[in-house]
């Protein structure tokens, strides 16, 4: 990922989108224009710019790296297929998230090829047997021993997320991880803002019960 693109991602990750901000990011607009002209490298740049955000959000929802990767790929392929239908009335990443969330929900419902593994299930990879929760919680830690406590907490949180209903999990991920505003979440999920608020508070209550020992 280019430095500029990384900065943009960091910037987007760190700030909540202003309410009512509908104009597309200038850089995105330029990349999309080039995409429409058939410039492959422009689409490659878009993928690189947003892949981490999309991948992370899907991973937190489905809890499985392979599935998250598959769904992230599908999100971008679908975005490219429907590029002409993007009217630039919203931020490009809002539109991308909508595709990603729709795909995730659809795949989850079909529950065929996709298997949303439980985090406490075990998987064998060569000689190593490990818990999926640990893979997710510890993936960035070079020295797991130094952050054992933190990793355990993260695993517990991810497990709690996976226990609550998907409709609640998605709003929590979008609000607390992706730091989207209610309006934006409502656009992504095509839901009224009131429903978003209500789901969010119910999700937090459920998580509070699941993680009660960590909150004391």
């Amino acid at each position: 990922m280019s430095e500029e693109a990384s900065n943009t991602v960091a910037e987007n990750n760190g700030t909540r989108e202003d309410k009512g901000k509908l104009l597309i990011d200038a850089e995105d607009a330029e990349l999309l224009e080039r995409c429409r002209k058939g410039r492959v490298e422009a689409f490659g740049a878009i993928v690189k710019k947003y892949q981490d955000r999309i991948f992370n959000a899907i991973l937190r929802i489905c809890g499985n790296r392979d599935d998250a990767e598959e769904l992230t790929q599908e999100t971008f392929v679908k975005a490219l297929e429907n590029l002409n239908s993007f009217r630039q009335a919203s931020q490009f990443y809002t539109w991308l998230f909508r595709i990603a969330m729709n795909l995730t929900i659809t795949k989850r419902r079909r529950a065929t090829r996709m298997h949303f593994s439980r985090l406490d299930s075990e998987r064998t990879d060569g000689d190593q047997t490990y818990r999926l929760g640990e893979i997710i919680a510890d993936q960035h830690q070079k020295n797991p021993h130094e952050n054992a406590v933190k990793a355990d907490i993260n695993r517990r949180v991810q497990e709690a997320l996976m226990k609550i209903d998907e409709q609640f999990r998605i709003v929590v991920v979008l609000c607390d991880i992706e730091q989207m505003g209610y309006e934006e979440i409502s656009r992504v999920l095509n839901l009224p803002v009131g429903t978003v608020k209500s789901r969010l508070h119910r999700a937090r209550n459920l998580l509070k019960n699941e993680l009660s020992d960590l909150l004391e």
Partner: protein
Amino acid sequence: MDEKEKIAELLSAYIDGDLPSEQARAVEELLQRQPELAKELESLQKVKQLIRDLPRASAPDDLAQKVLARVERKPRVRLVSIRRFGQLAAAAGIILLIGIGIIITQLTHKPTRTGGYKSPSASGEKTLRRSTPAPSNLLASAGTSFVPGKAVMSIFINTDNLALTQRQVESILASNNIKLADSAKTTVAVRKANKLDRESQPINIFKRTQIKPNQIRYEVVITRKQLKHIINELNAIRASQNVPQVPLITPKESRGGKGLERIALAETSQGETKKLGETKKLGKKRGTGALRQPPTTGEEKIEIAKASISEADRTSKEKGDITKSASAKRQIKVLEKSHSISKRPVAAATSKESKSRHSFIAYTNKKAKRSTRKVTTTQPHLAQIVVILTAVNTAR
């Protein structure tokens, strides 16, 4: 929603900073008054913080390459689960139906343009799908016909002076700003002007084919606005000929021909109508049908074909049962032999190849392409006319 629930929702919105300042102040006052609420708020803030603190996972480094590779190789083959089989089977069924529809459309479309017909065979009825026009003495008795479901019209003009009639027809076309597709350059230019892809039939451009020494065929796709005017002028040419013309038959109710029905083409005299009715009955009764059109091309064509036999038969026997007539049977055999079943070249043969070469552009322009493909004769505002000039008295 009860009061407690409302307050809990307000707290959730409060920690997200989503409350208007007035409501936020009210919540703060409430929190000061009710310590249990403050505790609840603290718990919710901790939950939010725990979620936020989850490490951010990065996508695999090669994800972009994988995405682009997927784009390049689409449509891709997937392993199908048994559960999904039903859905895919339903989709396949729909595609099959569409395919059958296209085949039927082609079968009904082509004979009309060439004056083709269906003839009986030993085992039943065999369709001459891609036939050349019938000999002039039979074809000369054909008139106008419509193909149900398609806005395609065939007009047959018998003439004793082919060259003159040809000039007249071309003059009509020219006066309606319809150009001759004399070269690939013209076709390309027209397609470009109308923003059509290579699969679409160009509008306002006519194709002239010398199908026999005494027969010339014109094909043109026009808008329905032009249609009535052109038909009237072509009818005037028909009327001015010194040779007998085929009775024109009013098109029956059909989806594609709906707009065409307004054009009154019924010149059929009472006597001829009766004759047509009689011959049809005879054919049906004997179960052979003599020369018959494919059912999808409509009853009109059946009548035209039978009328053709009737005409030929009358010259030799004056009257009689056409299905029993030896001369008619001989004619059928001659016709069957003379009709080659050759496939027309597919114009869009290279489209697949070009798609694979430019798959990325095809992706981004998919919708735009779809919209241009809609420009065909099945479009409600377009119609296709096929005019066949036949020199009746000139040597072949």
